[in-house]
């Protein structure tokens, strides 16, 4: 028992900054927002209790809400896997001992660096514009140009491309993960005459699985929360025809443009539950595919 107490003490000592920060800056705002979600609150006047009205309105009489859910799910389902696969692909490509590789890494990370800037919106508009390079390329291939900003489906895909293009962060984490796989494992496999693909599936993937789990969870959460690209690219409208009305964008509009902070808070708690369910499924599944070296393969 003595050691048990001691372990608890050390554990809580190490995570105490998080607990203190959580109690100081996060829990009260969280409770407040949960409370707001049951109220009509316009930011200026005291909130008024209205029970579940916000939640009911969302699912019964707000077609834009349903639209934003739909758009967000497409965005997440297409964006996360595509981005992760490209990130892993590039990370593998750059995980070599070439002298130029440091430069390559930096260069491949560049798109992620300009991603959040205001410049990206106008840049993207020019690239996907009627006379932009993308449509020129399409025409060069004998295809019809696409009205990327005028067609709701095309506009959403353009946002997905933008997300994939910024694979840099996931790539970097994959790279760090790849580098921490002991070289000796590969050497041993080579001695046994393992092919490239065998090494990939039997060494790389299992050894990388904790990092894959991390990237999957974080990208899923992050993609659900995407706000800036949708905001800047649609000039804040979520258009055309609400085709890029991502969840966070609609939530922001409700809260800060229409001053329905109660409704926005309810939206936030619904998405929290949705993301929590999805994330727990991913975590649950991780028991079957994630390999922790420190825990004897579990």
């Amino acid at each position, binding site marked *: 028992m003595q050691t048990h107490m001691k372990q608890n003490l050390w554990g809580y000592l190490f995570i105490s900054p998080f607990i203190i920060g959580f109690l100081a800056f996060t829990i009260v*705002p969280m409770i407040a927002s949960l409370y707001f979600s049951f109220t009509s609150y316009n930011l200026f006047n005291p909130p008024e209790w209205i029970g579940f009205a916000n939640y009911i309105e969302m699912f019964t009489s707000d077609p834009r809400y349903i639209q934003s859910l739909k758009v967000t799910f497409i965005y997440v389902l297409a964006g996360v896997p595509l981005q992760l696969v490209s990130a892993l692909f590039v990370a593998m490509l750059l995980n070599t001992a070439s002298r130029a590789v440091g430069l390559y890494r930096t260069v491949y990370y560049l798109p992620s660096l300009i991603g959040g800037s205001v410049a990206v919106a106008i*840049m993207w508009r020019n690239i996907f514009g009627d006379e932009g390079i993308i449509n020129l390329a399409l025409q060069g291939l004998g295809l019809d140009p696409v009205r990327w900003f005028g067609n709701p489906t095309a506009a959403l895909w353009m946002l997905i491309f933008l997300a994939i293009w910024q694979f840099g962060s996931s790539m970097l984490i994959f790279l760090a993960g790849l580098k921490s796989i002991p070289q000796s494992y590969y050497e041993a496999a080579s001695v046994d005459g393992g092919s490239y693909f065998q090494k990939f599936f039997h060494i790389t993937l299992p050894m990388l699985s904790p990092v894959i789990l991390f990237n999957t969870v974080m990208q899923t959460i992050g993609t659900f929360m995407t706000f800036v690209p949708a905001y800047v690219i649609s000039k804040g409208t979520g258009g055309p025809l609400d085709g890029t009305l991502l969840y966070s964008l609609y939530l922001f509009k409700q809260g*800060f443009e229409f001053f329905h902070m109660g409704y926005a808070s309810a939206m936030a708690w619904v998405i929290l539950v949705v993301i929590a369910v999805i994330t727990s499924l991913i975590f649950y599944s991780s028991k079957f595919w994630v390999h922790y070296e420190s825990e004897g393969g579990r």
Partner: protein
Amino acid sequence: MRPKHIKKIIYHVFVSGLAVLLLYPVFWLIASSFKETGQIFATAGNLIPKPFTFENYAQGWQGMGNYGFDTYIMNTFVYVLLVLLGHLISCSLIAFGFARLKFTGRGIWFAIMIMTLMLPSEVLMIPQYIIFAQLDWLNSLKPLVVPAYFGHPFFIFLLVQFIRTIPRELDEAAIIDGCNTFGIFTKIILPLLVPALATTSIFTFYWTWSNLLGPVLYLNSPGNYTVSMALNMFLSNETVSNWGAMFAMSVVSLIPVFIIFFIFQRYVVEGISTSGLKG
């Protein structure tokens, strides 16, 4: 030519070709920053500025009001470095706790931590703002910097995942050598965590550098503004936006981030392999 060389050439052609494709927008941004504002849209398809002008840089660097762009860059540096320090210290401590120590309630606290990532920050904003107002922290860096010293879930989780890939035998060896828990953290885990900490630094640097919402809310005095706020002020919703200056200063503000990445990426990939760890 030997097949090994051919393979190498194919590799470089492919990797640099893909890079050019991905970088087209970046080239576009840089090219536009040297164009006259009137030409940016008229010659959007052309990557060579004609005429070539430094005017945008001169104009943008002047900044606005009484503050030049250098002020905004300095402000941003101070802000970023304070946050970076906070993240490195707090996140590694917390991550070690979650990854290596068994204590009652570990799972619950970890779940709570991940959960805080899932609530859209927009709805936390107002209550948080009110708290900081009560503390009299408005119009200062405190609301932006102090929370960094209490960890950031993203980086904690990242570090946890990396620590879990470090074999436990190392800890046990250290215990035999007489290390206590804190000793294991500083002597065994921290050195092996360098790649993940480098990753943390890169992300923290860039995210903080480009953070807009926090500075907008908490920095009222123009003398304290950050780069991202300044960039927005080149745009106008009523008259003509100064695109040229905005692009030029976007390029300038990318340089520090670029340099930081170039320096730190080495540690991301070299950490463990040079420390001679065998699994």
